[in-house]
């Protein structure tokens, strides 16, 4: 059988009394993207940090490119690139300075490091601002530089730890395109995210984790089938119309809508056609709306569908 690009078996990690990972298995075939979807504190970052040799597991094993992350950490570090929450660029250096620094630490000669930096700056659209300190970069530029920094050593496996958290949607799609280009060239990726949309856009395979355990595994398509594909969110003009809106949503979809915002209702739909029928229903009833959207389910909705427990209610108890 083909050797996995990276593989974790039965990972356990405790920090004091907190159990960050409680027996997690992950693996990905070479050249594929594995997304790990979960809320804050689910253990995503800990899993990445173990695979990236930054943290030792309390139990279980992890291998990257066949090398053990604990016993053969030095070998593993020659294969990996790390970006996102677990690693940052140096704000006081320029974008170019950061990339050249990493190149030199990877034992490139100075001219090679400069060439490599220029190549990546160009590719990520940062050439114009290459010599300005990162402190003045926008959020999107910083994430792009971060991604570039993880690719300096031409890694075989890249860990992207919530690479787009906090970015606005346009910037997010731009970064996705860049991740997709990198993966098209055969690099394997472990991506952690809080957005099903992001996993759907990038991943070949998906794990949902919560409280340090994998609670669902499959391809994004399989998972979407479980959680009901898409969802419609409606925000009536006047909060007094909430009940009326809810009635329309329920009668068209046959599901009970969930209140997702102060004045927003959301309900899973099986296809876009249902969404148009919801729109027709609202118009027929004469309910004016300020927002109407068709989107992939949010993390909260995914968890609701998988566990039957609303995360809000869970944290209340």
């Amino acid at each position, binding site marked *: 059988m083909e050797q996995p690009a990276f593989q974790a078996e039965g990972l356990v990690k405790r920090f004091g009394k907190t159990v960050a990972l409680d027996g997690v298995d992950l693996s990905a075939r070479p050249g594929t993207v594995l997304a790990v979807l979960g809320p804050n504190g689910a253990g995503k970052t800990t899993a990445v940090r173990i695979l990236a040799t*930054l943290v030792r597991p309390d139990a279980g094993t992890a291998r990257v490119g066949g090398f053990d992350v604990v016993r053969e950490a030095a070998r593993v*570090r020659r294969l990996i690139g790390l970006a996102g*929450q677990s690693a940052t660029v140096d704000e006081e250096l320029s974008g170019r300075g950061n990339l050249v620094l990493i190149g030199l630490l990877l034992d490139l000669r100075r001219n090679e490091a400069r060439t490599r930096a220029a190549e990546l700056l160009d590719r990520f659209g940062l050439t114009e601002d290459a010599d300005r300190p990162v402190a003045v970069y926008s959020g999107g530029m910083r994430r792009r530089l971060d991604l570039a920094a993880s690719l300096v050593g031409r890694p075989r496996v890249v860990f992207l730890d919530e690479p787009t958290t906090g970015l606005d949607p346009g910037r997010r799609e731009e970064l996705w395109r860049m991740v997709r280009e990198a993966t098209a060239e055969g690099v394997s990726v472990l991506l952690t995210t809080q957005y099903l949309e992001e996993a759907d856009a990038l991943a070949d395979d998906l794990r949902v984790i919560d409280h340090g355990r994998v609670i669902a595994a499959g391809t994004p398509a399989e998972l979407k089938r479980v959680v009901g594909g898409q969802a419609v969110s409606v925000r009536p003009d006047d909060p007094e119309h909430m009940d009326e809106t809810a009635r329309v949503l329920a009668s068209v979809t046959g599901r009970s809508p969930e209140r997702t915002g102060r004045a927003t209702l959301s309900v899973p739909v099986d296809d876009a056609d249902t969404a148009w029928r919801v729109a027709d229903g609202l118009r027929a009833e004469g309910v004016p709306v300020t927002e109407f959207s068709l989107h992939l389910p949010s993390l909260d909705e995914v968890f609701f569908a998988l566990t039957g427990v609303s995360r809000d209610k869970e944290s209340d108890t």
Partner: protein
Amino acid sequence: MSDLLSPLDTPRRPAALTRHSLVLARRGLAKSVRDPGAIVNGVITPALFMVLFVYLFGGSVSGSTGDYLRYLFPGVLVMGAGLSGMLASGVSINVDRKKGVFDRFRSLPIGRSAPLWGSVLADVVRYAVAVALLFAIGYLMGFRVTTDLASAAAAAALAMGFGFALSWVMVFVGVLVRNESTVLAVAFIAFLPLLLGTSLAAPVDTLPGWLRAWAGINPATHAMDACRALLTGTAAGASITVTLAWSAGLVAVFCPLAVLAHTRER
């Protein structure tokens, strides 16, 4: 472009730790050029003490400001190197660890102690600048080396060696505590007894008993006495040996401790 991700041809080159440390030292210095705070602190504070003491007390303590400057300057030199050592690395390492910059370094195939060595080596350049600037200020105020050039160079080296030793202590603190403000607080609290509770402003035997006892033990006193001997030809006694022993001892203890604390997982 299509080979953007083909494996890098990077044969392992020799002396990796030294090379990586120097690369990281350059990074530290590039930042110092942009934000020369640590150097300024290492120069301004001692220079202010020098001006203040010489012109306020010089006349009454030594009879003339020139004589007092002769006594004071070597101590100020040690203070400058020591202060630079206490303020730079500990703080910057703490910030780098907290922000995640060191996590990127730790995911690279480099020695785990390389970032610490890099930072401390960058500090050495900072003390050199601080010491040179203090010599220039001292010269303008009228201080003259009365021994020879070799002794003056030895004094500068001794002061820098002492600063190097102190910076390892602060690196250890920087790795251990959570916030850079704590590192600064430790440096400030240590500054008073360590650099002022010495023979800096007046000979130890003129101090009250309790302070004399402390100043006698304090390695900074020995470093100042040694520099005084090397720059102005006073009796050195054992001060040079004691300073070297202290500096070596501090490095021998705190360098491994800092590396250990740094590589220990969190």
